[in-house]
């Protein structure tokens, strides 16, 4: 577990991880870009700082893949905002990606802490 005072891991997200985080965020319901970024930051207790510059291209990429879909809606404070929601294939992709991630984490852990657990 990272310590509270550790510096945020800005810009060091593993490639493909941002996609996974976005998809996970959308499991709870549709959200616009701003919310997605905030949710990721809050839930990672500010360890993961989403670089907003890469958020939007990532959203676009996911939409092109058909994993998420977008629509224009009204935000909490009555503004027009573009909302994203998870599609059916997106949901499937998320569970695949998540289990791949788990595998990866376990593998890395096995390397880092051999036989200690």
């Amino acid at each position, binding site marked *: 577990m990272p310590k509270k005072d550790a510096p945020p891991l800005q810009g060091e997200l593993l490639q493909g991880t941002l996609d996974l985080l976005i998809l996970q965020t959308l499991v709870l319901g549709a959200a*616009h*870009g*701003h919310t997605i970024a905030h949710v990721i930051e809050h839930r990672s207790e500010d360890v993961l700082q989403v*670089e*907003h*510059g890469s958020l*939007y*291209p990532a959203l*676009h*990429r996911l*939409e*092109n893949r*058909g994993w998420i879909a977008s629509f224009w809606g009204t*935000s909490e*404070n009555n*503004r*027009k*905002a*573009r909302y994203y929601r998870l599609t059916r294939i997106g949901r499937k992709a998320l569970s695949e990606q998540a289990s791949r991630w788990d595998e990866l984490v376990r593998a890395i852990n096995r390397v880092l802490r051999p036989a200690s657990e």
Partner: protein
Amino acid sequence: MGWTRFFRRRAWDEERARELDAYLQMETEENIARGMTPEEARYAARRKLGNRTLIREEIYRMNTIGLLETVWQDVKYAARVLRKSPGFTLFAVAILSLGIAANTSIFSIADAVLLRPLPYRDAGRLVMVWEDASTYGFPQNTPAPGNFSDWKARNHVFEDTAASAFATLNLTGDDTPEQLNGVSVSANLFPVLGTSPALGRDFHSEDNNPGAAPVAILSHGLWLRRFGANPEVIGRELLLNDRKYAVVGVMPAAFIFPDRATEIWVPWQFTKEKLNDHGSHFLAVVARLKAGTSLESANAELATIAKQIEREHPDDNAKVGAFAVPLREYVAGDIRLAILVLSGAVCFVLLIACANVASLLLARATGKRREVAMRLTLGASRLRIAFQMLTESFLLAVLAGSLGLVLSVWGTQFLAALVPTGIAPLGGAGVDRRVLFFNVGVSMGTGILFGLLPALRISSLNLANSLKNGGGRGSVGAGGQRLRNMLVVSEVALAIVLLAGAALMIRSFVNLVHLDPGFRADHVLVLRTPIQMQKYDTQARRTAFYDRILEKVEHLPGVITAGYTTWIPLTNEGGATGITIEGHPEPAPGQTPIPNVRIVSRNYMKALRMKLVEGRLIDEHDGYGTQLIALINETMARNFWPGQNTLGKRFKRGGFPEKSPWITIVGIVGDVHQAGLDRPARAEMYLPYEQHDFFPPDYLAVRTSGDPMLVVEPVRQQVWSIDKQQPVAETMPLEQLVGENLAPKRMQASLLGAFAGLALLLASLGIYAVLSFAVTQRTQEIGVRMALGAHSRDVLRMVFSHGLRLFLMGAGFGLAAALALSRTLGHLLYGVSANDPLSFVGVMVVLGAVTLLACYIPARRAMRVDPLAALRYE
């Protein structure tokens, strides 16, 4: 999503921009809520988001497809370049579209006549079967019924074999009497062809039995014309040749057999004897090859059967062979070669146009050297630059192709009208999908052809030299000039080939027009009054019928004289009978003389203004029961009595031991081209109809003092005043028949002439462009030379020698190619040899003169170069 996002990326980009704006606003508001001033809040939000443009660009790039983007850029660039030089663009598009239009038009005709499937099922397996009676002067002879029966019974190569014979059917009864172009057929004709009536029933095999109730099937055209497309025509009775025929069917509109003139089919009712007649040859036989059987094996088998028939019937089948030709060849006939030649010609025209445009592009590329060198230095890939040049060529080609397509719609109509009606394309020619594909293919091919050379040249530019030389002026790449010279040489060579071909065709045509056909076609009206055998059943009655008509017609005002004949010239290639010559030994099998025979009235020779060479014409004393007489033509006299005085010589009709009476020759007349203007006359004899009428004289020739068409109505009325049931058909001036006979040659000569003219124009433009460019490029050099004391004469000589060198090289190649290719014109030529020196020399002179003209303008410009001005450019 997919590739379509490429086209929506602009709209998308706008959406992204709005989305990012929304983000900024939200972030700003939050920042304000955290206690920042609005100004600070906005900055902080912007900082957090990063570079907006970069984000948008990244997303934008995600939506582009690399290659497509490049191509689109190139197209836009090329369009700009072409718009900037409208003169060049117009010229290039104009000549290319002419070339493409000519190709597309000729292709659509060729497609309709030669390529498109015939309107019969599995038409590739249909063949026509003919007798080979070359020994008697009929290399493709109409088979005898007996031979047909034997082929049909003995072969193992055909699924089935059917036959038809022309039958003139006089339709009489309630409406105007009319002569129908009919055929009497074996009942299996339609199944062999793989068609059946659109309305009613097909023939049954019993319909062929003698004594069966006569039935008929109508053509779609006749059904429309005479019966107003009334479906109740089925079962109706027609009076044909005074016999009642029940209409049992109507054929589909597209059905044609054996030719497009055929309006009605009736089953023949041949007796057993008739079906075994091996002596009279008058059928057209069509057969369907068994699946997998080749034409060669069919021909081998036919030859074997013909040998058997020859052994069994030596008297009338000696040296008669048999062979099959694909139905397609039979239908396309003579026009096949003409179309192939014209296709070659238009292909040449397009090649010349390509060479011209390529040469222009090369010249333009020279001007672009600096620009290209700069781009190469800045890191552009050579492939990319070559691609860009090719795009420009393609754009030109596409423009030219579209314009060419429009032109070809018109061109095809024009050509289709020129094709003689007898062989006009089945189902008509028009611009359809196949033609469209061809057009697109040709346009693309053209683009590559003329664009590749300049593209390759410019992309292989030597960087250092081009930049050092400052590009453009004074630095003619020697290679570039050499390439352009080569292009002009090939243009000249191609033009020579075309011009030579056109010259030969035009000379052939002129030969034909000036040929003496043995008769004078002007002021002659032709009509056909087919005799009704049932009504005029004795020779005396028939003679009286002809006599009365001639008597009445000759007394009409405006009529000089009139005569009957069995076949007016150019209407029948055959019409022959075997003879035995007095004092000659019995001829070997196959050596029996078979001259043409025409049965005529007294004044027929006068009506046609035929030439009397010796002796006398038929006169009023040559009647029934007097001494049998004949006139013969010069060829017959020469062939059968060489070097003898022919007058008073005798022969008789039929084979050697024949008991028929002797016929005495009383006159010799000039040869008449019966089978076609370009076909030599056969031996021919003329017999008075009072003495013989084994062939009925149906054609009436009327010589008039004025316009022959003016007497059509009076003549018809006279005929109907004698017999109001008498059909009168094929009414036309004899000149029209001659014109129709000349039409294919006229078409070939005029089209080839037009293409050659186009080639000449393009080639001279090519020479002009290259010289003119060379002069511009050498302005400084010329200026320096003149400053150093060169005369304008020397400058003139320089330009002219350059032009003449190009011409002579091109002429050398062109002559060699023309000599080799003119042989393929084959039978399209008449009275001129394929390497006629006059034509070739004439072509060289014409092209030489045009070359000099093309040299003159640039040369004059070169002479006027002001040395000072030229040097100042340095």
